[in-house]
C-alpha cells in the first residue's frame, strides 16, 4: 500500500465563466519514502491538486467532488472534517509553498515560528523547542543558525527564507512533504541548492516527497517517479529514468522540446503551439488534441484511457485500473513519432 493514494480526484472551481474542472480525475500514488514529481504547464491544475490533498482549498469557490478519494495510510481524507485533517497537517503531511517572500509571518522571528510548530506537533517545552529549532535550521543548511533563529523574515534572502520554510515544514517530522513550486521564485543558483537540499532531506529522513513544478529539470534532478499533468489529468507517468529519455505522450515530448539546451546552441526551440485551454471548457476527445501535431480522427472524438506501457505488466497495453506508478500514457498512439535528442 502506498503512503498516499489519490483516486479519481476531481476538484472543481466556481468561476465567473462557469464551473472550471481544474482537477478532473487524477490518480496518483506516493510510496513511502519516495520522491514523486508532478510536471505541467501553468493552468494544468498542479497547485490545486496539492491543496486538495490536505483540504486546504478555499471553501467559498472550490469543491472536491463526490467519488474523489485521497487516502493517507489507508485513511480517507476527503470529507474527513477539519479536526481530523488538522491532525494530519504538519504532523504527517507538510507543505512548502512557492512564494518564500510571503509564506513566513513577518512579525515573528524564524526561531519562534518553528518553535510554535514544535510545541504543537511534538509537545516540546520552551527549552527543548529552542534547541530543536536551531537544529532544524542547521539541518536545512542555514549558516550561523543560532543567530539566524532570532532574525525576522524580512532580514533574509529568498533562498534563506525558503530554507526556513522547509525547516518549519520539517518541525512536525512529517512522512510526506508536499513542495509546490518550491524553487520557482528563486535565482537559478539558489534553485539548485534548494533542490539538492530537498533531495538530501528526502533521502536522510526517509521521507516521501511530492514535488510539483513546471520545470522538467527540477523534477528530473530529485524524483524517482514522474507524473505529467495536462488538462486536469495525468497524461503520462513512470520512472523518471524512462519518461524523459523516451517520452510516450506528445505533450511530454512537447515539454521536453520547449527546453533550451546549453550544449547544443543550434538546436531549435520548439514550443508547443497554442495555450492550455480554459478549464471551464476542455476540448472534446483527447484534451491535448488541439495542440497536438500527431492528431488523427479518433483523438477528436474520444478521450484515450491511461494505457499501461510496462513490459512486465501483465495487462500491458490495456487500460490501467488507476493508480500505481508503472509506465503508462494517456494517448491513442503512444510512442516516439520522432527520435528525441539525436
Amino acid at each position: 500500500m502506498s503512503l498516499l493514494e489519490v483516486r479519481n480526484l476531481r476538484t472543481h472551481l466556481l468561476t465567473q465563466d462557469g464551473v472550471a474542472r481544474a482537477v478532473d480525475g487524477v490518480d496518483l500514488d506516493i510510496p513511502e519514502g519516495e520522491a514523486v514529481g508532478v510536471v505541467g504547464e501553468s493552468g494544468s491544475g498542479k497547485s490545486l491538486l496539492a491543496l486538495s490533498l490536505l483540504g486546504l482549498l478555499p471553501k467559498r469557490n472550490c469543491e472536491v467532488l463526490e467519488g474523489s478519494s485521497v487516502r493517507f495510510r489507508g485513511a480517507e481524507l476527503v470529507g474527513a472534517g477539519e479536526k481530523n485533517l488538522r491532525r494530519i497537517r504538519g504532523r504527517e503531511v507538510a507543505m512548502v509553498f512557492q512564494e518564500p517572500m510571503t509564506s513566513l509571518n513577518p512579525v515573528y522571528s524564524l526561531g519562534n515560528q518553528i518553535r510554535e510548530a514544535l510545541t504543537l506537533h511534538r509537545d516540546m517545552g520552551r527549552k527543548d523547542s529552542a534547541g530543536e529549532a536551531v537544529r532544524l535550521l542547521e539541518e536545512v543548511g542555514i549558516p550561523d543558525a543560532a543567530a539566524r533563529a532570532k532574525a525576522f523574515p524580512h532580514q533574509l534572502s529568498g533562498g534563506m527564507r525558503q530554507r526556513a520554510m522547509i525547516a518549519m515544514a520539517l518541525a512536525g517530522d512529517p512522512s510526506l512533504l508536499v513542495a509546490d513550486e518550491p524553487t520557482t521564485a528563486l535565482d537559478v543558483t539558489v534553485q539548485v541548492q534548494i533542490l539538492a537540499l530537498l533531495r538530501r532531506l528526502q533521502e536522510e529522513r526517509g521521507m516521501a516527497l511530492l514535488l510539483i513544478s513546471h520545470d522538467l529539470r527540477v523534477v528530473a534532478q530529485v524524483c524517482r517517479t514522474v507524473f505529467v499533468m495536462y488538462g486536469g489529468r495525468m497524461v503520462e507517468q513512470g520512472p523518471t529514468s524512462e519518461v524523459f529519455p523516451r517520452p510516450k505522450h506528445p505533450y511530454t515530448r512537447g515539454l521536453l522540446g520547449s527546453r533550451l539546451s546549453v550544449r547544443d546552441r543550434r538546436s531549435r526551440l520548439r514550443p508547443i503551439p497554442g495555450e492550455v485551454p480554459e478549464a471551464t471548457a476542455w476540448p472534446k476527445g483527447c484534451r491535448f488534441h488541439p495542440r497536438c501535431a500527431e492528431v488523427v480522427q479518433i483523438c477528436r472524438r474520444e478521450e484515450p484511457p491511461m494505457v499501461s506501457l510496462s513490459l512486465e505488466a501483465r495487462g500491458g497495453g490495456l487500460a490501467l485500473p488507476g493508480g500505481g506508478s508503472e509506465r503508462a500514457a494517456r494517448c491513442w498512439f503512444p510512442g516516439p513519432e520522432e527520435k528525441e535528442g539525436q
Partner: protein
Amino acid sequence: MVRWAALLLPGSAHLLERRWLGGGTALALWVGLLGLVVFRFRRVVDAVASGTDGRIGLAVLLLVLLTVWIWSLKSGPRRSEKGASAGDGDWARLWGSFRENRLAVVGLWVVFGFYLATFLTPFLTPYDPIFQPAFQTPEMGLLSAPPSAAHLLGTDGLSRDLFTRLLYGARISLSIGFLAVGISVTIGTLLGAVAGYLGGWFDFVVMRLVDLFMAFPRLVLLIAIVALFDSSIFLIIVALALTQWPFMARVVRGEILALKEREFAEAARALGFSRTRIIFKHLLPNALGPLIVAATLGIGNTIILEAGLSFLGLGVQGPMPSWGRMVFDGRSYLLDAWWITTFPGLAIVLVVLAFNLVGDGLRDALDPRQVSEVRR
C-alpha cells in the same frame, strides 16, 4: 564615587555617562518625588492619615521611587558589559525600537506624568475640588482670580482652585478615555477578527450590527443611552465603549480580510494550526499597527466626546470636575477670565497629543521591518 552617586541619586551615573534622556528622567523623578515628600511633609502626612486616597497615593509614590532606584542600579555604571543591543526578548526589542522615536518617548512621559499626578493629587494641592470658599468665608475665597502663587492656575467662577480641579478632573477624564477605549478595543477586535476570518453569516450579522451603530450620529446615540438610564460615570464609560467598538471592529476586520489571503496564513493552515491560533496569533499581530492608531485616536476622541456630553448636562454630574465639564463651565467667563477654559482645554490637547505620539511610536515599533531600518 560613581557607585555612590548612583546609589543616592539615581540617574546621576547615567548623566555622567552622557545618557541624558534616561538619566535626566530618572533624576527628575527622584528629586521631584522626594522633594514633594520633604517640602510638603505635613500635607502628605495629613492626606495619608485622612483616607484611602492618600494611602494609595503614598503607595504609588513609593513604588515609583523604588522602580527608579532599582532601574538606575541595574542599568547603571556597568553599562559597557551589556553592550548596546541589550536584551534579546521581544519586550526589550520593542522598547529598543520604540525609544528611537524621541517624540513618542516624550508622549509616553507626558501620559505617565498625567497618570502619576492623578495618584499624587492629594499631595500636590491643599485645596478641595468641590468646596467653594467664597460662599463660606467671603474674605478667604476669590471669584475668578487670575493665576497667582496661591492659585497656580487661578480660580473658577465659584472660587474653586483650578489646578486642584484639573488634577481631580484628570482622574475622571483619563479613566473614562482609557477604560472606554479598552472595552471597545476588546469587543471590536474579537468580533472584527472572527468575522473577518470566518466570513459567512457571522460576518454578515456583525457587520450589519456595525452598520446599524454607525448609521446614527455618535453623539445622538450616546445621548439616547445616557438619557435612558441614570447618568453615572460607569454608564458613560459603557455607553462610550458601546458606540466605539464598531469603528475598531471595522479596522480589524479589514486588516484580517487582507491578511488571511496572504500566503503565511495558508502556510499556517498547512501546518495544522487551529483557526483560533491562526486568527489571534498569526493574523492579529500583523493588524496591530492600524488598531493601535485607531485606539490612541480613540482615547482622544473619547475624552472630547465625554466633554461634549458633560456640556449637554448628560456627562459627569457636577460638582465633580471632568475636563470637558470644566471647559464648558468656563464658557460664560470666557471674556473676563480666560484661564478657566484655557487650562482644561490645554490639558485635553496635551493628553490627546501625547496619546497620539505614543500610538505612532508603538505602531512603528511593532512593525519588525521598521527596526532594522532605524537601527541599520
